[in-house]
């Protein structure tokens, strides 16, 4: 703390924290919104689904299939209709919205099971609503696992029933199970970019920027001091989101937490740079807020693949999505968190994200105004 620059920085950062913690609206925005979003997405989108209409096509009609069907019927999650439909008929019924899932027992099901200890069941789910599809598929898988466990306990038979799951219409299951990475991108974007932009524009609006400019403070110091608090708050938020995902939504972090935080820090820095850029062009807190929402939140929601699959978008929109930092971050988080992949799998995205961040910082340094106009 001997260097005057460090002293200035420390005083400035402390002042920023005063601003954050003394304004209820800011606090609510910083901590209330992320929590609300995770809970909203978590519980509204992945609520349990009862009484789903499904069709069971039993070509085996043997002891094993009957027993499993009884279990399915007994479950509160399913409303079972028994019919031997062809694949075309199943698809027609799904398109009409009559059924959500079809379970097909092949010929010789129990025969295979008792002789080979191994049998297959085909499960076809309507994944146009990916959330429902995964949820009811997992219910079904649980029932089958249950059956296997019972067979093992009662008859000492180690059966393996492999459900061949086929997701119709949306095979990649974009959506609900991946909402956490999406919310992370969204929340970090919101806090870093919007709050930084607003905080800087506030200084302009209140006239304090005038005094800061007419002081020996170096411009880069103002930028760093303005962004440090939001970087820290963002990391805090990230931790909160991850904790909520793990403990409230039962989503496990499969990959390295350290890697996740490192990549998040990179993304946060890019968002902070975006926020700074917005602050340069805005003269009021209101316009900073609107610009952030239009130019950052919207692309993050639409063009990252979080809500809508990018593959299905028109070509030009896909083009735009390549310059949206959250797109890369979303891919990275999905890979690390949900698939448990390491750095080798995401180095390309990291590189692009790093490059975008660098460009943003350069633009910022060049466009920082040392005067009022």
């Amino acid at each position, binding site marked *: 703390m001997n260097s005057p620059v460090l002293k200035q920085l420390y005083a400035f950062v402390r002042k920023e924290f005063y601003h954050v913690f003394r304004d209820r609206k800011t606090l609510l925005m910083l901590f209330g919104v992320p929590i609300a979003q995770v809970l909203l997405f978590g519980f509204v989108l992945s609520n349990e689904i009862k009484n789903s209409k499904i069709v069971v096509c039993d070509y085996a009609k043997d002891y094993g299939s009957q027993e499993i069907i009884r279990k399915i019927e007994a479950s509160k999650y399913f409303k079972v209709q028994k019919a031997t439909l062809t694949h075309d008929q199943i698809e027609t019924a799904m398109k009409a919205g009559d059924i959500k899932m079809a379970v097909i027992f092949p010929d010789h099901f129990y025969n295979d099971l008792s002789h080979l200890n191994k049998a297959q069941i085909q499960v076809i789910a309507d994944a146009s609503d990916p959330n429902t599809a995964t949820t009811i598929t997992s219910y079904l898988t649980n029932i089958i696992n249950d059956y296997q466990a019972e067979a093992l306990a009662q008859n000492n038979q180690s059966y393996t029933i492999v459900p061949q799951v086929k997701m119709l219409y949306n095979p990649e299951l974009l959506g609900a199970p991946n909402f956490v990475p999406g919310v992370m991108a969204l929340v970090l974007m919101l806090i870093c970019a919007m709050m930084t932009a607003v905080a800087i524009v506030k200084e302009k609006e209140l006239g304090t920027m005038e005094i800061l*400019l007419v002081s020996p403070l170096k411009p880069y110091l103002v930028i760093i001091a303005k962004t440090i608090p939001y970087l820290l708050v963002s990391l805090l938020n990230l931790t909160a989101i991850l904790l909520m995902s793990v403990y409230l939504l039962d989503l496990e972090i499969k990959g390295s937490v350290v890697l996740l935080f490192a990549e998040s820090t990179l993304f946060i820095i890019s968002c902070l740079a975006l926020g700074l850029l917005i602050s340069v062009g805005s003269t009021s807190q209101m316009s900073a807020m609107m610009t952030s929402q239009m130019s950052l939140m919207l692309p993050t929601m639409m063009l990252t693949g979080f809500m809508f699959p990018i593959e299905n978008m028109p070509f030009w929109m896909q083009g735009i999505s390549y310059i949206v930092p959250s797109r890369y971050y979303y891919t990275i988080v999905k890979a690390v968190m949900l698939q448990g992949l390491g750095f080798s799998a995401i180095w390309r995205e990291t590189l692009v994200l790093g490059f975008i961040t660098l460009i943003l910082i350069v633009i910022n340094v060049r466009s920082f105004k040392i005067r009022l106009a």
Partner: protein
Amino acid sequence: MSAITLDNITKTYNKGKVLAVDKATFDVAEGETFGLIGPDGAGKTSIFRVLTTLLLPDGGSATVAGFDVVKDYEKIRNCIGYMPGRFSLYQDLTVEENLNFFATIFNTTVKENYKLIEEIYVQIEPFKTRRAGKLSGGMKQKLALCCALIHKPRVLFLDEPTTGVDAVSRVEFWDMLKRLKHQGISILVSTPYMDEAALCDRIALIEGGKLLSIASPADTIKKYPGKLFAVKAANMHQLLKDLRSYEGTHSCFTFGDAMHVSFKQDANTDVSKLTGYLTAKGHKELEIAEIPAGIEDYFIRITEKEIAEK
């Protein structure tokens, strides 16, 4: 060496469409208190912003503490104190936190220069844990002055420091400026209040971006052409009308509880004729007295001329 010099400084806005400052030229000597007097929109704040290196001039050159406002802006920013026109401290920080913050960013401590602000600070010290946004107008200005002084600036820029401040606080504020002058700090101060002008060493009258007169307050008043009369009567409203329609009247305007009237150069300044005219109009309790012109009278007189010339 002059604390401030301006040489034909011109400042326009909207790509040259709005002329805010038109070839302003003046010097402020070391240790001098110099007042920029003029109404809102006269160009005072533009001059301040050019001198505090916040805006680039469109033409002309200027120096502050010997440094060029364009080239050496960083050096200027190290040695000036600036109090903008509207309250520009952090409203959600306490008095103490604001002061400490500004001391730190100017690479100093409150302790180091406490002597300089002591007299002002003792007045707001009882409220040091109060947030700046919750202070009264006068207190806010005292705190802003403390913050602008905390690094012992060589030149102090005060842009309308007393606007929106009660009369008592205004007097106190100017007392403080007088004491700062004794510390050798050069001060450029602007105000729309003519009564404050008399407290400066020299004043510049400014209107429509043009400097109309630069002189000491005493010399400024001496420049008033002709004589000035104060006229009072029972019915002031009717008096104004009648005075304005009087053939010899050059100008007449309400000033406090009297009408200040000046006559055309060629008109007879014999008040008896006017007395006769007003009595004939039925005015009662008539009082007419010749008075020395004030700065405001002079200001109105020369701006009238400006308008007439346009």
